[in-house]
Every structure is written in C-alpha cells, then in structure tokens.
C-alpha cells in the first residue's frame, strides 16, 4: 500500500505487456470494422457511392474480416493477459510470442492493403494464394492462412508450456484443449475444390465450429476468470459452471453445425439433426446469464471495476439474445427455408458477434486499463461520475441493438416479398430491395451505425483517460471479505 504506484507497462507482467499490443491492434480493427460497415451500409442507400472504386464487395469484405481479426486479437490478448495470473508463473517463450504478434499484425496490414488496392484477380489458383480466397469470413489469401497457423501454433506453445510449467487450473485445462480445436478447425478450411457443396461443407467446420463452439468456450474461460477478478467469485463455483457450460455448449453446438447443412446439397437427415441440436444451442447461453447474474447478485455488484463488470453483464445478455434467441428464431428448417440468405441472417450476425464477443473483449480492455493505470479504483465514485464509459456502453449497445432491429424489419420484408410472394427469383429479390419498408429499415440501420461509431470514439477516449486522475487503489471484493473476516 505504501509503495510507489506502478503505472503503464511497468505495472504489467510479461504476458500482459504482449496482451496490450494485441489490444491496441484489436481496437484499431474495431474502428475499421465500423468504418467499412458504414461505407457498405451507405451503398445500400446510395448504390452509386464509390461504385467502381471501392465497391460494396470490398467494403463488406473488409468490414467482416476486420471483425473476425479484431475478435481473434482480443481473445489472444485476453489469454496473454490472464495467463501468468492463472498459471502462477512467468510466461514461457515470450520473445517468440512477440515475434508472432508482429508477424500477425504485418500480415493483417498487407492483406488489408491488397484487399483495398488490388481487390480482385484472374480466375486462377494463384489469385487464391496471393490476393483473395473469395470465401466469406476467410477471404484472406492462402499465404496469410499459413501465417495465421504459424502464429496460432506459437500462441498455443506459449499457453500450453506456461500452464505446464506453472499450475493447471480448470480454466487452464479447458483453455488449452479448446485452443487445439481452434487451430485444428482452421485447417479444415485450407483447401480448394471445384465442388461447391464440398467446399461449403468444410467451410462451415471453420465458421460454425469456431464461432458457435470453440470461440464460445474461449469466452467462457475468459468470463470465468473475469468473474473471479471483477467480483471475487469463488473459483470452485466458477470452474464448475465452466464445465457445465462446456458440456451444454459442445453438447448442442457440435451437431448444431447441422443447421448449416439444410440447403447446400447435403443429405436430408441434417434437417432433423441440425434442427434439433441447434434448437438446444440457447440452453448454455441461458446458463451463462444465470451464472453472471447470480454471481453479481451474491456479490451485490461490488466490484473495483464497474465498466468491466457492466460489459461482462452485457456479454451474458448479448450472447443469450444475439446468439441464442436471434439464432433460434430462424434455425428450424421450416422457417430457415424462407429466411436463409436474407437480412435475417445479417440481423442475427450483428447481434451475435457483438453480444457474444465484442462485449467480452471490451470487458477485458477495461481490466487491462485498470492495471495500466496502477490498479486504481474503477468502481464507485469515478472522477466525472464515469460518464464516458456509461455513455459509450449505452451508445454501443443501443447502436448495435438499433441496427439489429432495423435489419430484422428489412429481413421480414425481404422474406415476404422475395421468397413468399415472388418465388425467390432475381426480379423478386430486387422488388424486395426497392420496397419502402425494406429501405426504411436500411436507413435506420445506417443511423444506428453512426450511433455505434460515436460509442466507439467515446470508448477509445475513455480507455485512454479513465482513472488517470484517480488515486484510490482498487479494493477487490475477496480482500474486502478477508478484512471483514
């Protein structure tokens, strides 16, 4: 207590210093995601905007790729952040980890420049290797895939070797096994075939089994650790909850993969398998809400880091509604045969990615900011009453929720006109796109997009300034309990 307050990188352990680098790049990419999303959204309203210069396809690709990569950078950073604390030892192979960070970041920068400047290539395998793979979410050319695998292997080595050297906790065990799956699933997307059905079959192993299985487990681990840190929740309870969530998540999510195999040429038994198991997918997300709300209630919301706790709660609800409820709405094949490939999917995608993953990353950013500022109080009585984090929380959540609702209105309209009335033809598609209600949804989506961008700026401003003038040290709930005892 009476030692001089350490701030900045001096306050951090080795893993955390590396984590901060990942967080900075993640935040830059978060900004890029929103910016290119706004450009693409505006092209829905004014199709001639940047036509032939930076077409919708380019903006949309950068939008979703920036999203995937900032999520990954956030997760990787989060794990580097917690690893020394969780394993109780110094990180193993930090220099290699730093090298991987720079390789990864430079690769991402090159890929984005090629996306924006070169954009497309001739119909040859060389284009797939060097320009653009042309497969949604994993458009990065094959050379970058190889680089990503190398970086992830280094990351895996850091994590597995550190836990092996230190102590294996429940969180550590789940984390390491999950990372094996994260790396393994990515490999299933790294091949070319002229057979579109085969292509999409394996492509979903990457997309679905990442997003709806391994990523969910990853954020489950971060959430478990975060609840211990923000609330002082008991490790045994948190770990038990984590196992329950893993059982429910992978119990439903692995075969829930089948909801992507309804219409791509795959056999009809997937209608039953996919429909049934994906209908169960919201169950673990309900468990997560119960878990977060229960722990917060038991600890009476007493936390030395209010913004982090608020974003953890936002995560629990966002994951449940965005991934769970919005996914369930159109996951049964009887509904999906009409809604598949419409703005319904866009509505679900925005809500799920933000609710499940962006929120968790932002929560960890706040935990990192706290330690960076010398472990000062981020709880009650913040300077300025913490208006910046509260407003950015409101603007970001309100903005995304607004976009989600607007896209859903457009989605309903599209499904009725294009699919139900017009026989799913091209003229039916355009008739729906020009319908007044559809366009109203698109306008509102754009307005809420600007709101989201405002929330992002406020978030960045807050992360740069929160706690700078704060002098009171953070008092963790566990310490409070000990003192009380």
């Amino acid at each position: 207590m009476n030692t001089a307050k350490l701030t900045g990188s001096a306050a951090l352990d080795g893993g955390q210093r590396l984590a901060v680098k990942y967080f900075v790049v993640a935040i830059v990419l978060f900004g890029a995601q929103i910016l290119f999303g706004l450009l693409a959204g505006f092209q829905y309203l004014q199709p001639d905007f940047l036509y032939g210069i930076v077409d919708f396809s380019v903006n949309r690709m950068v939008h979703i790729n920036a999203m995937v990569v900032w999520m990954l950078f956030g997760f990787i950073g989060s794990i580097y952040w917690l690893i020394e604390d969780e394993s109780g030892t110094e990180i193993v192979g930090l220099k290699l980890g730093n090298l991987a960070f720079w390789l990864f970041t430079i690769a991402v920068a090159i890929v984005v420049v090629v996306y924006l400047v070169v954009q497309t290539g001739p119909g040859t395998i060389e284009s797939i290797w060097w320009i653009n793979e042309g497969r949604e979410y994993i458009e990065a050319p094959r050379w970058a895939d190889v680089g990503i695998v190398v970086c992830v292997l280094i990351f895996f080595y850091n994590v597995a070797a550190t836990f092996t050297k230190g102590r294996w906790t429940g969180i550590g065990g789940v984390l390491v096994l999950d990372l094996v799956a994260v790396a393994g699933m990515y490999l299933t997307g790294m091949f070319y075939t002229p057979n579109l059905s085969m292509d999409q079959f394996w492509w979903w192993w990457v997309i679905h089994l990442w997003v709806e299985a391994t990523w969910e487990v990853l954020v489950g681990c971060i959430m478990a650790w975060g609840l211990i840190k923000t609330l002082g929740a008991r490790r045994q309870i948190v770990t038990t909850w984590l196992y329950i969530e893993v059982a429910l998540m992978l119990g439903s999510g692995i075969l829930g993969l089948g909801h992507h195999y309804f219409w791509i040429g795959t056999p009809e038994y997937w209608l039953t398998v996919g429909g049934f198991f994906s209908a169960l997918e919201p169950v673990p997300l309900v468990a997560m809400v119960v878990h977060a709300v229960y722990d917060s209630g038991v600890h009476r919301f007493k936390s030395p880091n209010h913004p982090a706790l608020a974003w953890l709660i936002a995560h629990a609800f966002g994951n449940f509604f965005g991934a769970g409820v919005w996914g369930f709405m159109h996951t049964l094949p009887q509904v999906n045969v009409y809604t598949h490939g419409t703005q319904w999917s866009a509505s679900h995608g925005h809500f799920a990615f933000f609710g499940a993953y962006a929120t968790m990353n932002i929560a960890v950013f706040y935990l990192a900011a706290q330690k960076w500022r010398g472990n000062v109080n981020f709880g009650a009585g913040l300077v300025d009453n913490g208006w910046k984090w509260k407003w950015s929380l409101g603007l970001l959540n309100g903005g995304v929720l607004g976009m989600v609702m607007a896209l859903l209105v457009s989605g309903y309209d599209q499904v009725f006109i294009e699919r139900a009335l017009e026989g799913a033809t091209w003229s039916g598609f355009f008739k729906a796109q020009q319908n007044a209600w559809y366009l109203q949804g698109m306008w509102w989506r754009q307005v809420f997009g600007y709101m989201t961008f405002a929330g992002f700026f406020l978030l960045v401003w807050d992360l740069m300034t929160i706690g700078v003038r704060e002098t009171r040290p953070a008092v963790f709930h566990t310490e409070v309990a000990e003192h009380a005892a």
Partner: protein
Amino acid sequence: MSNVPWWASEDFWRKTAIWVTAGMAVVLVVLTFDTVAAITAGHSRVPAYEVINKRIYYRMSTARGFQEPVIGADAPLFGKMLSPEEAEAMVSHGKLTLQARNCASCHTILGNGAYYAPDLTKAWLDPAWAGESAREYLMVKFLMDPTTNARGFGGKRRMPNLHLTEDEAKAVVAFLKWTSAIDTTGFPRNFTPIAQEGDR
C-alpha cells in the same frame, strides 16, 4: 466440500463435459463420412461435372413435397459436348473466377455470402434470362459488361465491371449451370424457374 452433492460437484461436470464432447464429436465424424460420400460430385446429391452437357430443369416432386432438379437430354453448353475432364476443368475455372472476383461479398450462393445482390444457386434457371435457348449468351454478355447490360430491375444497384475475359465468363456460366443441378432439398422455397420449353 463434502456437503456438495455429486450432481453439483466439479468432478462430475468435468467428466460430463469430456464425455459429452467426445460423444458428439464421434457422431459428427460418422455423419461426416456419410455426407462426404453423398456430396462427392457424381453421387446422389451433387451432379457430376459433365452434367453441363445436359439440359437441367426444375420439377415439383410430389413424393418429397418440393421442387428438385432433373437432368434431361443432351444440351451442350455453347454448342460443345465436353469430356468429363474438360467439364470439370471448365466448372473449376468458373469457381476460381467466382472466388477471385469476390462474388460472394455481394451475392449469396447456396444461400451463403452477402445480401447485396441476388442468390446465384439457381441463376441458370432464373426467369431473368428470357428463354432457355438464348440464356447462355445473354449471361456471358452480361458478365463481360454488367454496367452497360445492367439488370437492376428498376433499381439503382448495378454490378460493377469486374473485367471478366470471355473464357472466364463462359466458365462462370458452366459453374452456375452445374450448381443449378445440386439437390438443395427445396431451397429456395417456391422458386419460379425460367419458362421451360416443352415441359409444361
């Protein structure tokens, strides 16, 4: 610790998580073997590439309760019958062109992709192409200069000119013809195909 019932214990749930995950993974692997066999080109659900030499049309199946693609008589694409190897090479060139030109960042295909432009799954059978006989040439003309031959159906949205060569455009048409013969279990629902000559 000792007061915790077995069903709430950490140990019980750790074992449950492992067994459930392993069990589901095994089921997925078994189903994957079956599915991969069914979707290999030339098997039950996905046509062989030389199907582009045939007429492909769409018909209601009363047994299945939805429409399904039917392979008809010879109808060589661009007037030339292709060997299985030539057909595969052409379809593959079309798919590579689709990927390299980033088509799925505007269009969906099999319902997956972006929602800015129409789905390509049944592009070959879409009524936008006037009639069956003229369609392949109209498609090539459109693909090579979509700005001039814009098909916005009254709206302002236009496909940008992606400077496809004639070979690339023809290969894309071959790929889309092959795609239209994939059995998509009735997706998209209620699809209204092109006027099918002699079929009604």
